[in-house]
């Protein structure tokens, strides 16, 4: 039994071992930081995938929850010296709560209209932060952003001299969120998400509380995204409205799973492993001369994927499924035509 699993999952096991050993193979801090960023995007993609891939609610503003989480934990750290680990969880809860408040009206919208509302919410939060130097009596310093105060290097303060601990923190977070996605996909909740993704009216007629399940889903996604926000703040020691609350990052975390394979466990990770290095390469090749080249490349790749492999890269390895999906597309065209 165990041997069988090992044989079946050889690639996965070898991959995991490689991931664990990576910082000791490539010792340069630059590379370790780059690896951390790749996995960070994979993690954010996984969080997005729970809402967008499993339940089909396409958000183009999901990084707003990362921003809220990062500001929450950093402000807590500045004012009360509470460990970022606890700040992380509190930030997650705040983000989750906000996602429910926002979801109550916006989940009445369907498809593209919902997506537009997510962009609007992201923009509104960014403008609020940019326009105010203080919020709720706390100093947020507008566009200047917040510096995470330097403390002793320790696990409790989530500050380290070396980059290696950051690598392992995000690696563990990504493994956990992948396991959660796997569990969700095979649970009642996951099947209900899939039903909502496929057809809301049919789902409702089968006893599924569509709005309720959407809210649960967005709470999970926002909570986990906020944890990623705190991580990013601790990694870069800085929170500002233009990065985590910007449109580019929100689009990037959606592109990872779309390219890799929406609704699959490994899709966002595959997407990040392919796309994020491209960003680094584009940056070194074109430098500051042409900014945002990587976004152009992402756009091209996304178009190719959407046309030739709508199930994402992961689906190319599952031949039978991808061919059946094509039949689905065809029959739907016939039906509608």
């Amino acid at each position, binding site marked *: 039994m165990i041997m069988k699993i090992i044989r079946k999952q050889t690639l996965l096991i070898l991959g995991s071992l490689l991931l664990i050993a990576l910082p000791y193979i490539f010792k340069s801090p630059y590379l370790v930081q780059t690896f951390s960023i790749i996995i960070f995007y994979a993690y954010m993609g996984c969080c997005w995938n729970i809402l967008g891939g499993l339940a089909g609610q396409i958000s183009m503003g999901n990084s707003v929850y990362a921003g809220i989480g990062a500001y929450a934990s950093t402000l807590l750290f500045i004012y009360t010296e509470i460990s970022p680990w606890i700040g992380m969880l509190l930030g997650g809860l705040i983000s989750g709560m906000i996602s429910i408040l926002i979801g109550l009206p916006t989940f009445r919208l369907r498809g593209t209209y919902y997506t537009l509302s997510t962009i609007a919410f992201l923009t509104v939060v960014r403008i609020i932060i940019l326009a105010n130097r203080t919020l709720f009596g706390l100093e947020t310093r507008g566009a200047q952003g917040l510096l995470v105060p330097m403390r002793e290097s320790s696990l409790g303060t989530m500050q380290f001299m070396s980059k290696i601990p950051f690598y392992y923190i995000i690696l563990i977070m990504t493994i956990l969120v992948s396991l959660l996605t796997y569990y969700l996909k095979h649970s009642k909740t996951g*099947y209900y998400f*899939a039903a909502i993704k496929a057809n809301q*009216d049919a789902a409702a*007629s089968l006893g599924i509380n569509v709005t309720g399940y959407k809210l649960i889903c967005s709470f999970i996604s926002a909570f986990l995204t906020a944890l990623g926000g705190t991580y990013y703040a601790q990694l870069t020691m800085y929170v500002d409205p233009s990065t985590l609350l910007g449109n580019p990052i929100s689009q990037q975390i959606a592109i990872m799973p779309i390219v890799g394979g929406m609704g699959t466990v490994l899709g966002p990770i595959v997407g990040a492993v392919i796309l994020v290095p491209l960003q680094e390469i584009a940056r070194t090749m074109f430098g500051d001369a042409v900014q945002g080249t990587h976004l152009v490349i992402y756009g091209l790749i996304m178009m190719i994927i959407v046309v030739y492999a709508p199930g994402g890269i992961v689906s190319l390895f599952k031949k039978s499924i991808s061919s*059946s999906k094509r039949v*689905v597309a065809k*029959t739907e065209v016939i039906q509608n035509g």
Partner: protein
Amino acid sequence: MANPKVVLKLRGVTKNFGGVSAVNNVSLELFEGEVFGLIGPNGAGKTTLFNVIAGFYKPTQGKVIFNGRDISGKPPYKICKLGLGRTFQIVKPFGDLTVLENVMIGALNRTQNMKVAREKANEILDITRLADKRDKVAGCLNIVDRKQIEIARALATKPDVLLLDEVMAGLNPSESAEVVEMIQHLRKVTGISLLLIEHVMSVVMKLSDRVCVLDHGELIAQGKPTEIAQDERVIKSYLGDRYYANTDK
């Protein structure tokens, strides 16, 4: 059947869209174990009436009473939980999922346990003759199978009353004979009450214990299939003279 129990009761149900009255003051009763056919010309308000009963629309006026409870204006998922299932005229299968998974989602309405839901779904698939297609992806199937999924999925929610919206539309005679047989079998096995919208008159007349006719949102006749076929108003608004001539022979 001395005193059959009323499972579903509509009392003066009206649904207006702006100035248009799609359903106007419709009252009817569905008895336990009965098959009740709902016929009428296109645009008569049949599907709108279904949508009102199943909670997709709030009635402008009137009440829908199911098993003695007022369900008018309750959301669809709550109505389904209470035991009223429906199918859609335009089939809505969960295209990326397998037939079994489609039906399992219905079965999860009554259980938290995936294993129980799977068993229940397999049972339903046997009744609906989809068993050999259980692992096929729903989106790949032909229209007959997708209509069957629609019924199977609704059945899996374990309804007392099932609303079937034109399950025969688009099927050829032998296919619809197959579905008729399935429905008759189903009735025998489960004792379910059915309210069905249908255009194929031979099917309605064969399946239904009673028939009612809707025209311009109003109920113009109800009674036994044979009585309805003789009704002047029904012939004029819907059946046409030829059908009358046919039944006369």
